[in-house]
Structures are given as structure tokens and as C-alpha cells.
């Protein structure tokens, strides 16, 4: 029987994954921060708090493994340890973030979580500090016997000693593959009883379990140590043995309670300064301050921030542990008024629903607009006209604002995407032995959440590529007269209705010749064409699936598939990707994506009987032309526009529509850094289009990326420029082949 209904439980789990992902991101950032400032107690406190929350959350959801690991990590992350340990904490924190993340994804897929053994060992190695006391028992044996006898057992042993008997502590470790631990245990007991009077044994029958490894016992005996050791080595049962004579301080005053007290005093000494160091944020005890000083004057030299718990067994006058009451409340008050809690978690679907309605409203608006226009024409003198016009203007302003506000809900700062890259750069740079810094700017540029999510993979690929291939090794850089440290730059900014994300490196640039050679080798282009390719066409070859200039495939990159992914995703987003590269100076990838996927500003035009649209953002200019202006060069129709030669695309050919009229319009489109002219019959105008996704079953072509409805009910097809251009290329190739 579970406590919560399935629905509730899965809701909680969702929330857990969501917040855990956030926590891991924080952990990553804190780890990187810690790498820069090793041992900063404030950062360690943050890490600790993050791990603490993760621990609590995962425990609440019943994810034991994760919670336990987090707990272990939390325990070793003390301010004290921050001082003693070195940079390795940052590594452990980052490994932890990775381990936790793989555990999370295992949980998410309902799979067995990875054991996280590496992390556990790392934590252990952190936790291992020189322990001067009570570690001595183990000695040369692998056996760690504690001989933690209870008070009563102590008393019994003391009593035996008092009567002149010799007492031995004996520890057995069982052979790993020894079957039937219960029987083995009985064997051990029998041997012990042969050796002498059994005073104490752990475990006793009541706590015997099957996975028992070590038995500890105390006996009083007349035999000597050698005899006992011989007796206790039971072949094929006992793997290692520890026998030590037990001596209490002879004089009777050393009684148990004193030991107890001594131990607790030690504990207190041990624990208190640590706790205090955590409470008082900044100043750790000055080097001369030993724990003793702490004990004598608790917190004497420190600002009293928290109430120090009564620390010592020694009575000593303590200053009343009070708050610096004057300062804190005032601070708290200002904190209160300045930051209102305004965060809401809303299902993305609900926002989409609203967005959809707004889309409909916009269609409604243009319907209204058309009707008013008609009314205008029909009754140009009617005074009602003005009223309509006013109402229209008012309404459309509101609708515009409404649309913007709804769009804003979906907008998230690019930072959400960027923040994972410091870690990526660090890891890749480390694994290929380079020194690379990442510079980010424009993090607060807003972008539609769904676009942002889709960009994650391509961007990660580009960043990895930049570090792995773009940036040269340090000696190579120095030879080239560049600083040894490479730089990768991430930038985001607005450009009209688009967002541009740049991934730039100051590395070696793309080697045109090498790229062309590879492309020819793999039969992607013909050797004859190779030299005639423009620089940008040549660089664009990197997007060809399977083409990689890397000499070897590494874990990070080199399979040549990544760039294809980049291109595919960008096309799906109605965005573009282009490359700027200069040999020896570096490479820049420019990703351009629309602000949002749902509503675009578009240019509408007609070809034959149909209305089409292209995103306005990709339109550079519109020109007029007559058939006489068009020339044919290398099987391409081209138009000379001022000083440029423009390749033309006849939509009428693609759409199988008869070409009409003598005069035509050329819509100049930019695609990456190339330009094309779309030949269209008639321009309709500029309009905001609400994109309706097209069912793949309805439209079996990639030439159209979506459709929209105009105010008058006309259906507009939105052209997918990228595929039109590539289609055009193919058509020309075919023509070229037949000719």
C-alpha cells in the first residue's frame, strides 16, 4: 500500500526530477566556482546546502542510493575539511554532479541506478584525514576490530583482571566463501570456550546474520597468546585473526564512567568547533587558535551569530548566546519588501492553449480588418467609419500587447541554456589537455522555451567541436603567435525578429583544402567542382552528414554526424546556420532562430493561383524584373541586381504552376550568408501569421513548413526556404546531367 495515489506520487516524482535537475545544475556551477576558488568556505556551504536539499528530496521520493550518496557527500563537506583538502573537492563535486545525474536518468527510466562506486571512493578519500586516535587497532592486519565492549562487559573483564586472570580480545574474520555462517559461528564459540572463559562476544546469537564477516570476543584464560592464536586459526573458516592482550590501567579508580566521560568530552571537543565554524560564516579560527582555546573562551574572538551550544563539560562562564538583534531584523525587513514571491509553475500545455487562442484572435482581427476595409469602400461618407476605425485600432493594439505578453510567458533567458556550457568546456578541455576559457555574453536574451530546448543539442555539439577541433594545442598556438589559452565565445543577441547565437573560437579555422579533399574522397562533390566552390559553399560542406575532417574519431567528436544534427535542428526551427572562418584566426558559427515558433511576420505573395508566405525575417529586399533581365549561367537562372549576381528560384516550376505574366517580382531571400531570388507573380503584403502545424499525412513535402489562415479564410502555405533551395539545387543538377 502506498501512501499517495499513483497520480499524486507521479506528480511528486515529476517535481522531484525537475527540481533535482535544477539542483544538479547549481552543483555543477558551484563545483566550477570551487575550482576557481578552492577551499572557499562560502562556496562549500552552498554546495553543502544543495547536496542537503537533494538528499532530502531524493529520500522523500524513496531514491535510497542517491540519497545515501548525497548524505555521504554532505557529511564530508565540512568547513574544516575545506581548509585541509585541496582542489580535489571541486573534482569530487563535479563527479558527484555527474553521478547524481546518471542516477536521476536511471530513476527516470525506472532502471537500476548506477552504484556510483567511483564517487563513493572519492568521498572516502576526502573523508580520510589523519586520525591520530583510535585507529591503532587494525595494525598490520586487514581486520578492523573495534572491541567496543559495553559497560557491563567492561565490568566483567575488569573483574576477571582483578582476579589475576589474563584477558584477550580476539577478532575473527570469516573466509569469504565460507558457507553456513551460523555453523561457523558455533565452531568459533566452541574453540573460544576451549581457550578459556568467554566474557563477551559480538554478535551474540540474537543478532547473528548471514552476511556476518567479523566476530569479536573477549575471553579470560590461563593460556598464553601464542597458544590461543594457534587454537583459533580454524582452517577454511577463519581468514584472519587478531589477538591482543587486554590491559586496563591497574588502579581501580579508572572506572568505566570516567572512560565514558572522557570519550564524550573528546566527542564534544571534536564536534563543537566544527559546528561553530559552520555557524559563523566567514572567519575560521586564526591559525594559532587550537581547540583548547575554543573551549576556554567560546567564541570570544568571533562575532556571535548563532547560539553556540553549551560546549564543554567543564563549567565555564559563557556569554549569553544572543542574536545581534539590532542588525538582523532591519536587514530582514528590507529583504522582505524588495523581493515579492512571484514564481508560478505552470504546465506548458496551458500556456500553449492560451497562445493558440491568441492566434485565433489574430485571425479574427484580420477578418475584422478586412470587413472594415470593405465597409470603408462601400460607405466612404458614413460617419460610423471613424468609429469603426478607432475601435479597430484600439482592439488591435490590445491584441498585439496580449500576444506579446503571452509570448513573453514562453520566453526564457538564453542563460538557461548557456549555463551548462562552462562545465562542458571544462570537461572537454581537460580530456584533450587544452587550456580553454569560455566567455559568454548576452545571457539575458530571451528565447522561446521550446526553441531553447531544441537548441541544446546542436549548441553542445558546436561548443564541443570548438574546443576539440577548433582550438589548437598550446604549443601550436604559441607557434602561431596566439596566447596559450584558447577562448570559446558564446553570444546571443536580437536581430530583428530573430535571435542570433554565435559560437566562436579563436582556433585554427576550417582548412578549406582539407575539407574539399575529404569531400571529394567521399564522393560528396566532384573533383572538378571543388575549386569552383565559393568559400561559403565550401565551409557549408561541414554540414554534410558523414563528413569529418578529424583524423581520428574521439569520444567527443569526429564522427561527422554532429554537424548534420545542427543543420537538421536549425531547419526544423525555421532557422539557419552559417559559418565564418578564417584560417589561423578561428571559426564562428552563427545560429539564427526565430523568436518564437508560433507566430511569425511573413511576406505574402502569389504564384499562379496560390498564396504563399516566407518569414519576413529572411527577406532582404524585393526587386522587379522582366524576363529580359534574366540570364542563364551554368544552367542557373541568374539576375544581376546592382553588383551582385543572384541565383533565381522559380516557384512556378516547383509548384507546377504555369508561369504567368511578363513582369515579375523577385523576393530576395537570405539563407545563411547566401542570397537567392524567389520569382513570384504578385505581392500580397505583410501579415502576422499564426502558424498551424501541418499533419505529415496531409502534406507529403518538406517544401512547406506550415500553413496559416488569413482573415478572409484563405489558406497560406509557409515555404520552407532551406528545402526549396536544396530542391532547386537538385533540379539543376538533373538538368545539368541531362543536358
Amino acid at each position, binding site marked *: 500500500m502506498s*501512501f499517495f495515489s499513483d497520480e499524486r*506520487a507521479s506528480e511528486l516524482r515529476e517535481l522531484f526530477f525537475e527540481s533535482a535537475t535544477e539542483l544538479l545544475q547549481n552543483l555543477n556551477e558551484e563545483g566550477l566556482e570551487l575550482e576557481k576558488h578552492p577551499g572557499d568556505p562560502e562556496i562549500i556551504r552552498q554546495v553543502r546546502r544543495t547536496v542537503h536539499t537533494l538528499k*532530502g528530496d531524493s529520500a522523500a521520493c524513496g531514491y535510497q542510493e542517491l540519497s545515501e550518496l548525497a548524505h555521504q557527500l554532505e557529511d564530508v563537506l565540512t568547513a574544516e575539511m575545506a581548509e585541509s583538502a585541496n582542489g580535489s573537492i571541486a573534482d569530487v563535486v563535479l563527479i558527484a554532479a555527474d553521478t547524481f545525474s546518471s542516477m536521476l536518468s536511471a530513476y527516470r527510466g525506472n532502471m537500476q541506478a548506477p552504484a556510483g562506486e567511483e564517487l563513493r571512493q572519492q568521498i572516502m578519500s576526502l573523508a580520510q584525514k589523519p586520525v591520530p586516535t583510535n585507529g591503532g587497532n587494525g595494525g598490520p592486519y586487514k581486520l578492523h576490530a573495534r572491541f567496543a565492549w*559495553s559497560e557491563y562487559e567492561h565490568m566483567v573483564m575488569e573483574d576477571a583482571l582483578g582476579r589475576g586472570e589474563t584477558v584477550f580480545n580476539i577478532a575473527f574474520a570469516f573466509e569469504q566463501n565460507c558457507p553456513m555462517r551460523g555453523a561457523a559461528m558455533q565452531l568459533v564459540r566452541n574453540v573460544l570456550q576451549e581457550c578459556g572463559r568467554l566474557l563477551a562476544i559480538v554478535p551474540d546469537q540474537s543478532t547473528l546474520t548471514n552476511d556476518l564477516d567479523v566476530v569479536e570476543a573477549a575471553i579470560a584464560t590461563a593460556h598464553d597468546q601464542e597458544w590461543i592464536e594457534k587454537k583459533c586459526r580454524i582452517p577454511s573458516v577463519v581468514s584472519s585473526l587478531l589477538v591482543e592482550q587486554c590491559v586496563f590501567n591497574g588502579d581501580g579508580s579508572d572506572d568505566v564512567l570516567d572512560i*565514558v566521560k572522557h570519550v*564524550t568530552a573528546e566527542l564534544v571537543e571534536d564536534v563543537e568547533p566544527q559546528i561553530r565554524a559552520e555557524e559563523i560564516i566567514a572567519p575560521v579560527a586564526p591559525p594559532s587558535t587550537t581547540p583548547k582555546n575554543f573551549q576556554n573562551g567560546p567564541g570570544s574572538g568571533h562575532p556571535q551569530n548563532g*547560539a553556540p551550544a553549551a560546549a564543554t563539560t567543564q563549567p565555564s562562564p559563557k556569554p549569553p*548566546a544572543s542574536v545581534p538583534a539590532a542588525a538582523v531584523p532591519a536587514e530582514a525587513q528590507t529583504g*522582505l519588501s524588495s523581493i515579492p514571491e512571484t514564481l508560478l509553475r505552470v504546465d506548458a500545455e496551458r500556456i500553449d492553449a492560451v497562445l493558440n487562442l491568441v492566434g485565433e484572435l489574430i485571425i479574427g482581427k484580420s477578418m475584422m480588418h478586412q470587413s472594415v476595409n470593405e465597409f470603408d469602400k462601400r460607405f466612404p461618407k458614413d460617419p460610423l467609419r471613424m468609429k469603426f476605425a478607432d475601435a479597430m485600432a484600439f482592439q488591435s493594439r490590445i491584441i498585439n500587447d496580449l500576444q506579446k505578453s503571452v509570448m513573453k510567458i514562453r520566453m526564457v533567458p538564453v542563460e538557461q541554456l548557456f549555463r551548462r556550457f562552462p562545465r562542458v568546456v571544462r570537461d572537454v578541455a581537460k580530456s584533450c589537455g587544452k587550456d580553454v576559457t569560455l566567455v559568454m555574453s548576452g545571457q539575458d536574451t530571451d528565447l522561446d522555451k521550446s526553441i531553447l530546448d531544441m537548441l541544446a543539442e546542436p549548441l553542445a555539439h558546436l561548443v564541443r567541436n570548438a574546443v576539440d577541433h577548433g582550438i589548437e594545442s598550446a604549443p601550436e598556438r604559441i607557434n602561431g603567435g596566439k596566447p596559450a589559452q584558447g577562448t570559446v565565445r558564446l553570444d546571443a543577441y536580437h536581430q530583428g525578429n530573430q535571435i542570433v547565437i554565435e559560437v566562436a573560437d579563436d582556433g585554427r579555422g576550417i582548412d578549406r583544402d582539407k575539407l574539399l579533399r575529404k569531400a571529394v574522397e567521399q564522393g560528396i562533390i566532384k573533383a572538378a567542382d571543388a575549386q569552383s566552390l565559393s568559400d561559403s559553399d565550401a565551409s557549408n560542406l561541414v554540414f554534410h552528414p558523414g563528413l569529418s575532417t578529424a583524423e581520428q574519431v574521439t569520444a567527443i567528436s569526429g564522427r561527422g554526424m554532429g554537424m548534420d544534427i545542427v543543420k537538421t535542428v536549425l531547419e526544423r526551427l525555421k532557422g539557419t546556420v552559417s559559418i565564418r572562418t578564417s584560417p589561423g584566426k578561428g571559426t564562428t558559427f552563427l545560429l539564427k532562430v526565430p523568436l518564437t515558433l508560433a507566430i511569425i511576420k511573413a511576406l505574402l505573395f502569389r504564384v499562379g493561383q496560390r498564396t504563399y508566405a516566407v518569414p519576413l525575417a529572411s527577406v532582404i529586399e524585393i526587386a522587379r524584373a522582366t524576363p529580359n533581365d534574366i540570364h542563364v549561367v551554368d544552367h542557373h537562372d541568374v539576375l544581376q541586381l546592382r553588383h551582385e549576381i543572384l541565383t533565381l528560384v522559380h516557384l512556378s516550376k516547383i509548384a507546377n504552376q504555369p508561369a504567368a505574366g511578363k513582369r515579375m517580382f523577385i523576393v530576395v531571400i537570405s539563407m545563411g550568408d547566401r542570397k537567392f531570388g524567389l520569382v513570384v507573380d504578385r505581392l500580397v503584403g505583410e501579415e502576422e501569421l499564426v502558424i498551424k502545424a501541418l499533419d505529415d499525412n496531409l502534406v507529403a513535402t518538406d517544401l512547406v513548413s506550415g500553413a496559416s489562415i488569413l482573415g478572409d479564410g484563405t489558406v497560406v502555405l509557409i515555404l520552407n526556404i532551406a528545402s526549396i533551395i536544396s530542391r532547386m539545387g537538385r533540379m539543376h543538377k538533373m538538368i545539368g546531367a541531362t543536358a
Partner: protein
Amino acid sequence: MSERVRVLVVDDSALMRKLISQILVRDSDIEVVGTAMDGAFGLKKIEELAPQVVTLDLEMPRMDGMETLRQITRRFRIPVIVVSAHTTDGASATFKALALGALDFVAKPRDAASAHMEEIAADLISKIKVAAKTRVGQSQVLPNEEPTRTANKPAYRPRQEPTKVVAVGVSTGGPMALQYMLSELPGDFPGSIVVVQHMPEGFTEMFARRLNECCAIDVKEAQSGDLLIAGRALICPGNRHMKVRRMPMGNIVVLSDDARVNGHRPSVDVLFRSVAAEFGSRGIGVLMTGMGDDGAFGLGLLKTAGALTIAQSEESCVVFGMPKAAIERGYAMRVVPLDMLSNTLTIQCSPERAARIAQV
């Protein structure tokens, strides 16, 4: 209760806020009026929403739990229930919070899918209901706000057979009441004390350590095999049962993992029963503040065995449940207010009186 109890949940983990809210939603007498992600918001929401009870996480960014607690108890006087982590540090902070005026604490919910949750939920819900009836600053006998009095421990304590074995059972409201009672006992208190305090696993060690710091007698979390000696109190660890046993060379406590009794582990009844069986008239049973009736039956057994039985008086209890159950059944020979308990015990355990009873 005609009105629903208005609760504010303050926790920095979104998951915990949701989880706690969902737990509380299941009880129709409780209404979660709001949640806050840190102390500063928490205080603001208290002003806005006027909750009757606040659940508080101690580990939070910005204004941490401790400071929040101080402000809540000072400015608003609303009962606070601390939701506490299962760590040594967590336990330590929890007791500090109790000293600062938090009414009670619950362990952080673990493993939402398991039956364990049922317990935690019941615990939380009942504590919230109790808290709603409590006015903070009510005329209970409570220790000073900063109860860290200097423990006047004797420099040397000889190991002595106790005159009496005092078994104490306590639940809700216990930590503070127990601290008050034990800290009033003299360093040379001649009895031996065994305590069952209903408390989750992982908190008792720190609790005992804290008590040890502010009491003249020694206080220790019990381990199996610990001796019953004069001037020492043994606190039963969470999630274990504790019994006493007479051994050839001395008397000890034994811990076990037996099944829950009265829904509790540790259970007061288990302890009382064993004290009655092993020590008879040498025992004293004290049943203090707490919900339910754990220990009432055991107190009856102690009475039958000839031991003195004491129940804490109603007006000094945070929750008058367990003592009431014992009193109603006629098992309590005396009803004593909290501030008189230590005196009563000191007198009852004095060697002269013990000797006199032994003669009778």
C-alpha cells in the same frame, strides 16, 4: 474543532513543500494556507495569512531556519513545528530550535512510496493539531529561552548501585519537559533513570548529549549493556525498545528491535513492564506529557509490583494524553506538576527513604 487549522509550510525544497502540503491535505481538519521558500518569505506570509501553525525547515538559504524561528516566536508567537533532517547536524540544530521555542519537531518525510510515510504523516498531523491548541508563551513551566545553564557536575562520580530505578515515559512536549526535570536534579542524585522518549531515530543521541550538557547528572543515549548507576539517565535510542535486566555483576539495559507496541518503538509500556518485573518496589514510574496512552498500562503494572507511580499534572503538560490515561485508570498514585517532579524524585530516591521502604 469547528475551524480548520491553518498551516504555513516553510521549506526551501519545492518537493518538500509539495509533499508536506499533500500530506496535510489528507486531513480534513487541516488547511495549508500557504507555502514559502525561505525564512524571509515565510515571515511575510505569516503577516499576510495569519496561520495558526508553521512547519519550518531549518536548512534554508537567505534567512535560515534558526533566525526565522527566532523572529516567528518573538514577533508572532505562533507555534512552530520543525521539519528536521536525519543527520547529526540536523539533530543538533533541532534541539537548538526547541530551545529557541519551537514547539516540537518531526523527521523529514522519507520514501513517499513506503508504508513508513503513513507514520510520518500521522505524526505530523497530530503534532500540528496539538500545536494549534497551544498558545506559545502559555504559562507552562518551560526552561528559560536559553536553557544552557551551566551543568554543575560533580568532579568525580563513584560507580554506585542506585537506590531506585526511575523509569520515565514521555512523548509530545517531552524534550523541553524532560530537560527541565533532569536539569533540576542534583549531581549526587542517588537514583538511576531510564527514559523512553518517543523520538525518531537519529535524534536521540544528540538529545542525550544536549541534556548531558545542561544537567548535573550524567545523561547518555543508552547502548545495550549500559549499567544502571546512580546519578545517570539513559535515554532509549529512537526505533529501538529498551528493557532493564538484572545481571550477576550489575544491572543493565538491553535494547531490542522487537515489533512496535502501541504503535511505538520505543514504547513506554515495554520499559515499564520490564522495570516492574525486574525491580518491583525498587522502581518508580513517571508518565509525562504526550499524546495517546502508551505507558498507562505499564504504569499499572508498576503499581501492582509495588512501585511508586507518578503522572505529570494536566496544567503542566503540553499534551495531557498519556498521564490522563493512567490517571483515569487509577494507575497513578501521585499527580505532580512538572516543576515539582525533580523534588519528588530526589526525596523518593534518597537513601534514607529507600532504606525505610526496604525495611517495610
